[in-house]
């Protein structure tokens, strides 16, 4: 006979945790490449050659992640979080999903509007998704930069909040997303 206890899970499901850390690495790399490539003459070409396929990979992953999230049971917020904090945490999570979905599309769209070939690897190209228009390109190019700064700001807010909970409040918020079971982890 199985125990029919309906206690909520202590952690996010493994799939969500793995996707979270994979994407954290990809998005941080992407932000670093983005800010470096626009300022570099020598590394511009090498960096943009990674930037394009990595952006498309993030687009694919964010869709998988969003669908996966819909079918997952999530652990509760720690008791240390007020309803206001919970609302902000949830809203910023949704904003991150939205940015990670829109930003690659803006990148793809702006290259389409400029009629650059959108090369992923070797001969693998993406089709253009917008008509040839340099005015449209210029607007999307500006949007791409603005969204990148916004994404960075939301990442910093998310990172700060988790650090604060983990180091100051010590409410084991992070253990919900830990790759291990989070039980044996030392209390800081």
């Amino acid at each position, binding site marked *: 006979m199985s125990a029919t206890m309906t206690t909520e899970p202590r952690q996010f499901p493994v799939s969500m945790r793995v996707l979270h850390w994979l994407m954290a690495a990809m998005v941080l790399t992407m*932000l*670093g490449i983005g*800010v*470096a*490539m*626009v*300022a*570099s*003459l*020598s*590394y*511009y*070409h*090498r960096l*943009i050659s990674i930037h394009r396929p990595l952006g498309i990979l993030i687009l694919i992953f964010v869709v998988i992640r969003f669908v996966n999230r819909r079918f997952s049971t999530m652990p509760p917020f720690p008791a240390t979080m007020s309803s206001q904090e919970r609302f902000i945490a949830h809203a910023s999570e949704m904003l991150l999903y939205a940015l990670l979905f829109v930003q690659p599309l803006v990148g793809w769209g702006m290259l389409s509007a*400029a*009629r*650059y*070939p959108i090369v992923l690897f*070797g*001969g693998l*190209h993406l*089709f253009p998704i917008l008509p*040839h228009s*340099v*005015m449209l*390109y*210029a*607007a999307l*190019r*500006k949007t791409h930069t603005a969204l990148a700064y916004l994404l*960075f700001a939301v990442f*910093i807010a998310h*990172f*700060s909040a988790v*650090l*604060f909970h983990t*180091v*100051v409040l*010590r*409410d*084991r918020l992070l253990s919900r997303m830990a790759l291990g079971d989070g039980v044996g982890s030392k*209390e800081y």
Partner: protein
Amino acid sequence: MPSDETPPAGNQPAPLSVFSTLARLAGVGVIILLVIAGFLYLGGWFNPHELTPARFVNGFQKVFGIHSGFRRNHAKGICVRGFFESNGNGTRLSKAVVFGVGRVPVIGRFSLGGGNPYASDDPEAIRGFGLLFRLRDGEQWRMAMINRPVFPFHTPRDFYDNLIASKPDPKTHKPDPKKMVAFMASHPEFAQAVKIFQSRPVSSGFDNSTFNGLNAFRFTNAAGVTTPVRWSMVPVDAFKPEGTAQSANLDKNYLFDDFITRIHNAPVQWRLILTVGQSGDRTDDATIPWPADREQVDAGRLTLDAVEAEAPGNCRDVNFDPLVLPVGIAPSDDPLLSARSAIYSKSFTRRAGEKKEPSAITPADVRK
């Protein structure tokens, strides 16, 4: 933490002292600041003197001013269309589909060096030729060539320093000769390149100019063998020297107008000549010519049969980025290549969003 503190009950950690709370808060703050600083460092914020694409383009704007909607360099130009017929000889060096026997459509742009889109044609001005091959499945080959056999600058910094040194003096309207002499003295490769330029007669027009890709590229064939290659477009029209009378021509667009007359008369053709480098030939320095006896492969014939004024959607709105390459052609270790790609892109982004003014060569000028 003091060791005699009572262990936390359940999930509640022991409360922290005020000092400990502050220290931990400070630690969090430091970590956040370090992450932000790391990103600022990557973005070049701590290196205000390092040359970036934006600073390079600002250099052109300082010297030539801002001409809304125009390229920051090679601002004056016209659009052309035609096709390239490959004879198959290039497949020995590169598996790029463009070298298989057959015909591919091209669009191109002839231009004069400098950031003033309304400058008078000058026989000594650098003639530019941007070209875009439309290959199958959306693949492209873009190139930007000039009518000089070598490039006078080894690094982007050399180019930039020369650009700034050549800024006309507000009084004389000419570059300060002292600055030019100083640049020449500190850059022997530049002096050498100028000597090569001066030793060659200038041709009479775009149609009989040889255009050179200058930078070396790595060609890889179907067997996986990689060879360093430089290429040129060699005119089918016979060489005619620039006439002395021509230089005093009253038509300030005479180079473009002559080309328009020429192409209306009959299509204009070039041969794509691939020069095969050998081990030891410099691929990272476009100022150094390769030995004259290097093997040359005639890869096919370029035919231009239509000309247009710059207009929305045509060559005006194309960035002839030399690093848009088909599979089978890759960049060499020449530091100019990535820099050209970055700077062209920056110039393109700036002009793309600006109000477009009519070009010097208007639709009325290109009519038969």
